[in-house]
C-alpha cells in the first residue's frame, strides 16, 4: 500500500500511508467500535446460551446477530445481539457468512440492563467448534493519563 515514489523535501511522508492508531495518552482512547455508549449493556454480567441463528446482519456501524434462545418455559424467544462493525469483524476473522440461518451456536453476551431480549455479543462458538469474538481482541492497557503544558 505504501508508495513512496516522491523524492523531495518532505520524503518522510509518502504519497499514501495506511496506518492504525496504537496509543494515545490523551485521556485514553475509545473502544474499537467506539460509536456509542455501552451503558445500556451490563458489562459485569456475562451470560451464555445455546442459540439458533435466525439472521446475521453484516453491516455498519454494527453487525447484528438475531438468534432464537429457548427461555425457562421452553419457548423460543428472539434476541438481538450487537457486534462490532463489519470492517473490524473482518479483521478479527469473521466473514459475511461465518454464521447462517439455522446454525446451532453458543453465544456469550452482556445482556441489556432493561431486561429486553438483547445484548452485546462477546464470543460465539460456531457449529464447527471455532470461537470468534464479537468485540475484538482482549482489552489493552489504558494509555497514560493526559499531560498538560
Amino acid at each position, binding site marked *: 500500500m505504501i508508495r513512496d515514489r516522491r523524492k523531495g523535501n518532505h520524503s518522510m511522508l509518502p504519497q499514501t500511508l495506511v496506518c492504525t492508531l496504537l496509543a494515545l495518552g*490523551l*485521556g485514553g*482512547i475509545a473502544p474499537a467500535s467506539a460509536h456509542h455508549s455501552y451503558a*445500556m449493556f451490563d458489562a459485569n454480567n456475562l451470560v451464555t446460551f445455546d442459540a439458533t441463528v435466525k439472521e446475521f446482519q453484516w453491516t455498519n456501524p454494527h453487525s447484528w446477530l438475531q438468534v432464537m434462545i429457548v427461555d425457562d418455559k421452553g419457548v423460543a424467544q428472539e434476541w438481538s445481539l450487537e457486534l462490532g462493525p463489519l470492517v473490524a469483524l473482518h479483521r478479527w476473522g469473521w466473514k459475511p457468512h461465518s454464521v447462517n440461518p439455522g446454525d446451532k451456536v453458543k453465544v456469550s453476551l452482556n445482556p441489556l440492563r432493561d431486561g429486553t431480549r438483547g445484548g452485546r455479543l462477546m464470543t460465539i462458538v460456531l457449529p464447527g467448534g471455532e470461537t470468534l469474538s464479537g468485540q475484538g481482541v*482482549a482489552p489493552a492497557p489504558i*494509555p497514560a493519563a*493526559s499531560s*498538560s503544558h
Partner: protein
Amino acid sequence: MQTPDRPFKTYPLTPEYAAILKQRRADEAAGKPYQVAQNRCLPAGLAATMTTGAYPIEIFYQKGGQEILLQKENVGALYRVYLNRPHKNADELYPMFYGDSIGHWEGNVLVVDTVSLGATAALDLITPHSEALHVVQRLHRVSYDTLEDEITFEDAKALTTPVTATAVFKLHADWEIEEYECTNERLMFDEHGNQTISKSAAP
C-alpha cells in the same frame, strides 16, 4: 487495538464545562447516555476521530504537495489540509465537523492547524468542548513503519490549559481501507433520551 470501554481520564475542564461533563455522566448512569453525532450516523468530527482507536487512517499527499487528505475508515471520516493558504476569514467560517485545516512543514514535521469545529460537542464520546476548540497536530514519520501525531487541544472556553498527547500509528502496508457506510443504526432513543434496540434500522 481495543481498549476497555469508557477509559476516559480527566481533562482540565473549566467549571462550566466540568458541570456539563458531570451532567452527562449522571445521565449515562441513568441510562440516558449523551448522544454524540456518530450515534445518528453523522460524522464523528476531528476531535473524536483523533481520540478513537482501531480504525486505519490513509494519508494522501496530492496536488504537488499543496494538499494533504486524511481518510479514516470508520464512518468514512475525511478531511483536507491546505498547505497553500492561511485560515479562512472569520466571516467565512461556520461550525464544521472537521473544520478549516491548514498546514506547513517544519523540516520533516507536518504541522496541521484546525479551527471552526463547532458542529460537534465532544472531544471523545462524552467530554465536552466548545466552538472555540483549536487543534494542532504535528505529524512525524519517525521510522519506516511508525508515524507519530502529537496532538494539542486548546479551548479557551472549555479547557483551563491546552492538552497535548502523542498518538502512535503503525504502518499496515497490506491493509485496504474498507467500505464503511453507516446503514444499520439500531440503537434508538425515545423522547426522554432512553436508549433501546430496535428490531430494524431507522428509516
